[in-house]
Structures are given as C-alpha cells and as structure tokens.
C-alpha cells in the first residue's frame, strides 16, 4: 500500500451496490445521517449528537462512526463505509489508510472471511519501514515521531494465519510480536504513560499466547505464561482464578484449591471488578471445587447464589445446568437453560425496540 498515491486505494468492491449510493450524501464532518446509506442491516441506530462525532473524527476521517459501528458489531456496514471512503478519495492522510485497513481486516475476520483479510494484509509493506512513520511526512505531521501503525493491525497480522488453520505461523508471529513489544518497553523507558501502554500490550499478547497453548492442552508452556502474567499483577483475583482453572484443567486439584483459597482472601481493592463480580468469582470457584468432588448439589447452590446476585452471569447459568445433568436431573437442566434463554430473548427484543424510537 503506497500512502502517497491515493489512486492505488481503489480496492475491488466488496459490496458493489454501495458504490452506487449518492456520493453527495457523504460529508466527513457532520452528524451521520449519511451513515444510513451504508447500513446493510435493517436495524438503525440512534445518531450520536454532533459534538461527540467530531471528537474522534479529529483523529481520522469519520472515525467516530467506525468506532460506533464496531461496538455494535455491524461489520458489513464498516466494510461498505471503507470501500465508499476509498472510492471517493476521502482519506487524505497516510495514517487514515492504515486505520481503515485495520478496521477492514478486523471486519473481514469477524465475518469469517479470513482469506480476504489475509489478502489485505499481504498488500502491506514492512511494518517497521519508513512508509509508516510520522517523521517521513513532516508536512502532514509536524513535530510527531514514531510509528503510525495501529497496534491492532500488528496483532491481526499474527492472528489471521491461525484463523486460516496455520497455527504454527500464527504462533511464530505472536512470539515475534511479543519480542517487539518488549523491545518497545525498554526503548520507551522514561516516558511513563507510553511504557504503561506498551506493558498493557505485553499482557495482551501474553494472554493471547496463553489462550492458544491452553486450547491445545500445552500445560507446561501455559503455566510459564500465566506465571509471568501473575508476576506483573499478583493481586488480580480474575487472573489468579484463571491460574486455578488451569491447574484444575490438567488435574492438580489440590493446587487449584489452594489458589482459589488465595483468591477468596484477596480484597477487591484494585477495582477491576465490581463487588458483585468479585463475589460471583469466588462463588464460581467454590462451585468448581464441588464439581470436582462430585458434590453437584452443593455446586448448584453456589451457582444459584451467583445467578441471584447477577442474572447475566452466563457462566453460572451454563455450569448450573451442567451440574443438574450430572445429578441425573436432565429435565431441570433443560428447564433452567430454557428459562434463561427466554429472559435473554425478552431483554434483546426490548433493546431493539428502544433503538427504533
């Protein structure tokens, strides 16, 4: 992708019909009535007030709209918007192309079109090259230095091969990404906010790797990774509970119990989870210990308390039904799942009607 010549941005139309919509409707700065031209799904959304949409738009053309669409899961709409913007040469700055490309790759992957996502990624130059640095365009970015590549794009570059069944390539790229992040942490020493951000990214990549290894039951590596994560935040009850779950998964019951006991004794001062969420976490951990001991009745009681505290605790709901089945109570298991599904459906229909107003 060559940022200096916009002509090269014309991509094969993903949704040819959208190119036929009225180009005059596309105005970058106003509130987004034109966004409805891109909607491929019937459910509309409430237009954000003009002052809000301007804020993110300052960073990149129409970014607030992209952000909004992504948080509503409207991936087709995002793809339409991207091809529209490119067709009409609305992206004038190099970083805008990269941001749009990132959204495109994410949308395609979410829509399970990973081969197309891979194709888009192949069009990129080397991430660490001159093309993607602010200082290469001093007239556009005066006084700004560094890489304009959104970190998510690097991550997608590593993730997409795994979605195409090439796990080894994906893992290699993730480990390379981890090294890259660790280099950046060293480099940015002195700039506390920056270091903080890159440390978050380190945790992000390590967590991804942990998920991959755990999914393949590679427990040795998984334990090493979770150790590293815990060293960075030993007081996070959610993280330590995950250590307990990993121990339980490979069969170290006594170790898991000890870990869950620690979590129970932790106070929830770091504020990452609400008081209810913390109580439910502890409750679910206790229930797991009962499941292992085959005391399904006790496990069901714990899960019921969790559900009473928070009826959107889907893990408690699911696991309670599972316990009912193990207690030979298949009918009650089915009944309880059905009732929760009914409630969720009701909530969803209330949600959509509200949005139409």
């Amino acid at each position, binding site marked *: 992708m060559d940022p200096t010549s916009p002509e090269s941005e014309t991509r094969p139309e993903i949704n040819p019909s959208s190119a036929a919509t009225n180009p005059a409707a596309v105005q970058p700065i106003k509130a987004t009535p034109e966004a409805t031209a891109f909607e491929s799904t019937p459910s509309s959304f409430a237009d954000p007030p003009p002052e809000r949409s301007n804020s993110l738009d300052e960073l990149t053309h129409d970014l607030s709209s992209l952000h909004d669409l992504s948080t509503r899961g409207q991936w087709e709409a995002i793809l339409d918007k991207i091809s529209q913007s490119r067709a009409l040469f609305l992206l004038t700055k190099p970083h805008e192309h990269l941001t749009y490309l990132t959204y495109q790759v994410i949308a395609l992957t979410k829509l399970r079109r990973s081969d197309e996502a891979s194709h888009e990624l192949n069009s990129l130059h080397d991430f660490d090259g001159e093309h993607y640095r602010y200082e290469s365009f001093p007239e556009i970015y005066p006084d700004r230095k560094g890489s304009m590549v959104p970190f*998510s794009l690097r991550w997608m570059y590593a993730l997409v091969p795994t979605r195409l069944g090439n796990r080894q390539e994906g893992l290699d790229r993730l480990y390379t990404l981890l090294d890259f992040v660790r280099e950046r942490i060293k480099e940015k020493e002195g700039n506390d906010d920056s270091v903080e951000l890159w440390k978050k990214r380190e945790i992000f990549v390590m967590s991804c790797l942990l998920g991959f290894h755990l999914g393949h039951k590679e427990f040795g590596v998984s334990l090493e990774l979770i150790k590293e994560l815990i060293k960075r935040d*030993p007081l996070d009850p959610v993280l330590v509970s995950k250590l307990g779950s990993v121990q339980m998964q490979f069969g170290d019951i006594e170790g898991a119990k000890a870990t869950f006991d620690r979590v129970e004794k932790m106070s929830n001062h770091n504020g990452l989870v609400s008081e209810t969420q913390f109580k439910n976490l502890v409750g679910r951990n206790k229930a797991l210990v009962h499941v292992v001991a085959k005391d399904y009745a006790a496990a069901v009681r714990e899960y019921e308390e969790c559900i009473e505290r928070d009826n959107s605790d889907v893990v408690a709901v699911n696991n309670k039904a599972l316990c009912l089945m193990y207690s*030979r109570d298949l009918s009650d298991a089915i009944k309880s799942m059905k009732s929760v599904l009914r409630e969720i459906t009701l909530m969803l229909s209330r949600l959509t009607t509200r949005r139409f107003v």
Partner: protein
Amino acid sequence: MSTGATQGPHSLAFRVMRLCKPSFHVDPPLRIDPFDLLAGEDFSDDPTSASLLRRHLSSAEGVDSDLSYRNRFLINHPTDPIGLSGLLLLPQSFGAIYLGETFCSYISVNNSSTSEVRDVTIKAEIQTERQRILLLDTSKSPVESIRTGGRYDFIVEHDVKELGAHTLVCSALYNDADGERKYLPQFFKFVVANPLSVRTKVRVVKETTFLEACIENHTKANLFMDQVDFEPAKQWTALRLHDPSSQHPPSSDLGGIIPNPPVIIRSGGGIHNYLYKLVPSADVSGQTKFQGSSILGKFQITWRTNLGEPGRLQTQQILGAPVSRKEINMRVVEVPTTIHLNRPFSASLNLTNQTDRQLGPFEVSLSQDESQMEKPVAINGLQKLMLPRLEAFGSSDFQLNLIASKLGVQKIGGITALDTREKKTYELVPEMEIFVESD
C-alpha cells in the same frame, strides 16, 4: 432392535452418553483495546496526544445497556484474550477408556411409542471376557410406568480393572400397550487399553540398591502424576531421590502463588523418570539378614486428567538383582597407628558367619592366586592360622601378624579364609588402608 418374530418394534430405546468429567471451554476471542485501534501505536508518546485520545474515547462511550455488543468487542478485563471464561463443557465424544479409570455413563431409556409402557425392569451390566458385573437392577422395584415421550434416566459407574473388550449391556423388561411382556437388550461396546508402562532398572552400588523407574504415557491425554509411590517390601527402606535444582522454591515476594512445576507426562509416548535409593531395613534382632528373596516392592500410581478425573494402577512386584550376600565376612578391624616398612605389625581381624547355620573350621592364609607379584602386605611368620567352627550368626576376633613390603598407602588384602568342611574360600574385604612409612 427386535430379537424375534413374536416381538414387534420396541417402544423403548436406550441412549448412552459417557459422563467423564467436564472440561473448560477455551475460546480466545477477537477483542480489542480501543487505544490499539483508534490511533497509531506511538500516537500516545506525546502526552498531549495521549490525553486527547483519552478524552475523545470517553466522550464516545455511550450509555450501555447490559447486552450491547460493545461488551463482546472491546476488552473488559486484561485477561479476556485468554478465552478462559470458566464455562464448562460436557464431554464432546466417547473418547478412549484406560485401565484404572472409572467408566461413568448417563443412560436414558425413552418411550418413543404412542402409548404408555408399564412395569419396567431395567438392568445395566458390564460384560468382559472374564466376568459379568451388575451395575443397576430395578427388578425389586420396577419403574411403574413410562408415559409416551417420557424418559427414565440413570447414571452408572464402574471401576475398570480389566483390559480388552467390554460391553455395556442395557436391558429393559416391560409391558407394552397391548399388555405383552417384551424384552429389549442393547449392547454398547468399548475397548479398554493400557494407559502406562513402567520400565525399571536396578543397580547395586556397594551396599545400596538404586531403583530407576521410567513411566511412559500411552494415552491420548497429558497425565498429571498426582502420586507415584514406591512401596518397598518389608526388608527394604526406600528414599525418593530428587534433583535439587529442579525444585524451585515458591517466590517469596508473591507469597507462594506460583506453584512448583507439576509432573505432567505428555500424551502419546511422553516419559518421566523416578529414582529411589533402597537400603536394607534393620530386622528385629538388629542383624542384617541374608535374604534369598529379591523382591524390592511395587509402585502405586495415581494420575489425573481434566478436572481431576483420576486413574489408579499398581505394578507387579519389582525384582531386584539377586543379592549376593556373603556367607562369611572377614574384615580387618584395627591396625597400629604407625606401620614401618619391613617391620612386622599386629592387625586385629574379625570373621563373621552371616548364615543361619554352623560353618567352619577355617584356615586363614594368604590367597594363592596366579599372580607371582609380591603382595604389599603379607603374613609374617606362620602362614596359616586355624579358627574353630562358628555358630549361626556368630563371629570370632583374631590377630594376624603382618608385614608390609611397600611404602605409602597400601590396602590389606589377599587374605582368604577356607572353610575346610565345605571347601569354600572367602576373601578378606580389602577395605582397610594403611600408611607404610620408611624405617
């Protein structure tokens, strides 16, 4: 289905689901931190830009309803990318069954006919080559009725103790709508394989026996070795030898959260080695016995797979190398502190009978071996000494006059005791070292 011309189609049918322990669902999601998407990775290097981005982001956050998609796209908690929510999953397939595990199954018998069945006697058995084991039998209190579309469920468990083909036989004896008494047998076959093999090696170094055991995992799952215990036979005491460098002390600053590396043997051929030191245990009378038996002991192994699903096995008795215990033990007990070259000195010796019968009389002399080389220490004076018979487990102390013909550190050896009755020769244990000084 139907087993004879007289029986029409059955109203009942059995359905079986293996109910081993559930596992955690691991599903790494595609979730983003908005700071990683909305701007370049180095955008926030400049503090003004960083606060600008933060402000824009917080103003873009709308009021969320609980079930908005936002919670499924943006990261809520830093550990979200792991994809370990705690959701449990039922076993997705029958899987493999191994010796030492517990076979557990959910069995449902359902009435798919259009009318009620009555007086249902249900039986579940495991049939192997050697035996038939009853798991459930409702004949004493039959199920009164199963309505149309209805079910009767039960869970059975069986500790698997045999290898090879097993059949779960489920049968129902019931009265159908026409009052006809019908019999439905259904057969569910599975094969039990060997999960582990234990290879042992025994080495004897001086008085100590070392036992090395190699456990190999033949299953399709990684096995967590919960307990591997060697139970020695009563004439032995066993001590497990660990490699001290592999024991990591729990990190003190983290309060021991981080567990020690567990022993997990990889599936499909992974191995782990265990080393034990065995010493003869002192018997009641305090004497070491001469044992003919070479049984060392056996292993008790407990392993676990997901959510602690256990398996237990015991090995056969492990045999050691035949213990070559000497019937007669002759040793030098004491020598003078200073020994000079070519000057005779007196050494105290002890001859012990380690058997449970009388032996001797004995003739003690220098051994007559082929080597013509002069021994560094020889018997001075009378070349033969006679010792009387020794009782079972008896011992006798005696003196020998010796002379050293070489300087420096020398071993006293080459002295034998001949049992004149049984014509057996016993060598002096060449342990004692002396320092020979010049005149």
